[in-house]
């Protein structure tokens, strides 16, 4: 088996657990969209073209509340700003690739593929074809998302109360699973606790701005904790 093929397949394989987390998430999006006022074609088009779970959910909620298109687009922008932070992290590993690679990998960049790919890039072995690993993860996520959106739409049509099943629990459960491998140092724990607390305190902010503000607070706290730890122990007062 060629290097590329092996990378592609192991990228897809390592994404399997996250497909399980994305399935109820995709289903509830599909099941909620049409009753919220989105046409079936628009529901599928959004999954196929926007391909961003959290902002698709929020858009559906805003459609149901008859929000103007300009505000829905602006909210999508803010909720997805975190992807710029992801692309900044991946940039050192991708900048030698041609644009015909960078553009599709950017289109398919999700929380899940980021979390999987960043761990692959951290290993230095055969880094020349590691982008095939990210491609494998991306395509697995994409196909999975389209499939469950469609199925959610069909199920939602047949079973009107499917939206009350609590399938939205899939998002926190998946994200908790993704966050645990990060918790290895004190600064990282400080960052996570601060961001979480700030997330609760900023719920009143409009258009999900709280997510961005809380992430910045968490990052700042983590960096401050790291800096405090690096100070020499002898600096303590005698």
């Amino acid at each position, binding site marked *: 088996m060629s290097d590329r093929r092996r990378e592609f397949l192991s990228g897809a394989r390592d994404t399997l657990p996250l497909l399980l987390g994305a399935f109820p998430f995709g289903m509830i999006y599909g099941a909620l969209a049409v009753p919220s006022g989105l046409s079936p074609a628009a529901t599928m088009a959004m999954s196929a073209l926007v391909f961003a779970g*959290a902002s698709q959910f929020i858009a559906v909620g805003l459609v149901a509340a008859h929000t103007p298109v300009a505000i829905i687009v602006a909210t999508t922008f803010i909720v997805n700003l975190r992807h710029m932070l992801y692309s900044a*992290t991946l940039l050192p590993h991708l900048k030698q690739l041609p644009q015909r690679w960078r553009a599709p990998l950017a289109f398919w960049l999700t929380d899940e593929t980021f979390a999987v790919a960043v761990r692959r890039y951290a290993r230095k072995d055969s880094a020349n074809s590691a982008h095939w690993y990210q491609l494998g993860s991306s395509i697995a996520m994409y196909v999975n998302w389209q499939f469950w959106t469609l199925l959610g739409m069909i199920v939602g049509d047949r079973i009107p109360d499917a939206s009350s099943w609590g399938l939205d629990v899939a998002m926190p459960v998946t994200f908790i699973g993704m966050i645990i491998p990060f918790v290895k140092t004190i600064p*990282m724990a400080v960052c996570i606790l601060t961001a979480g607390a700030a997330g609760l305190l900023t719920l009143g902010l409009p258009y999900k701005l709280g997510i961005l503000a809380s992430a910045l607070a968490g990052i700042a706290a983590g960096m401050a904790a790291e800096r405090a730890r690096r100070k020499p122990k002898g600096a303590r007062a005698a």
Partner: protein
Amino acid sequence: MTAAEVLMILGMTGVTFGVRYFLFALAERVRMAPWIEASLKFIPPAVLSAIILPAVLLPRGEWEISLSNPYLVAAVVTTAAGVMTRNLLATIAIGLFAFFAYRLIAFTF
């Protein structure tokens, strides 16, 4: 699809792809300061944590810190499963199972 839907989807596609592609497109022309590079590793856990806590503690928009909140119970079980198994698939499966099992029990009795 209505004209407003086409507009909404094109707009959402444009801003989402724009945000994801911006830095990749500029790659050669971007140089990051060392402190920015040092901050990158904190980004994913910070974003995820800011989404998780409100989703778990206020699942329906109101504070629910009690055993009758299945989202909170599932989050605690998921965390314990994650720490113990160190296996993502097992963690997510246990978390989802805990949620639906707990809800079934809580609604039945």
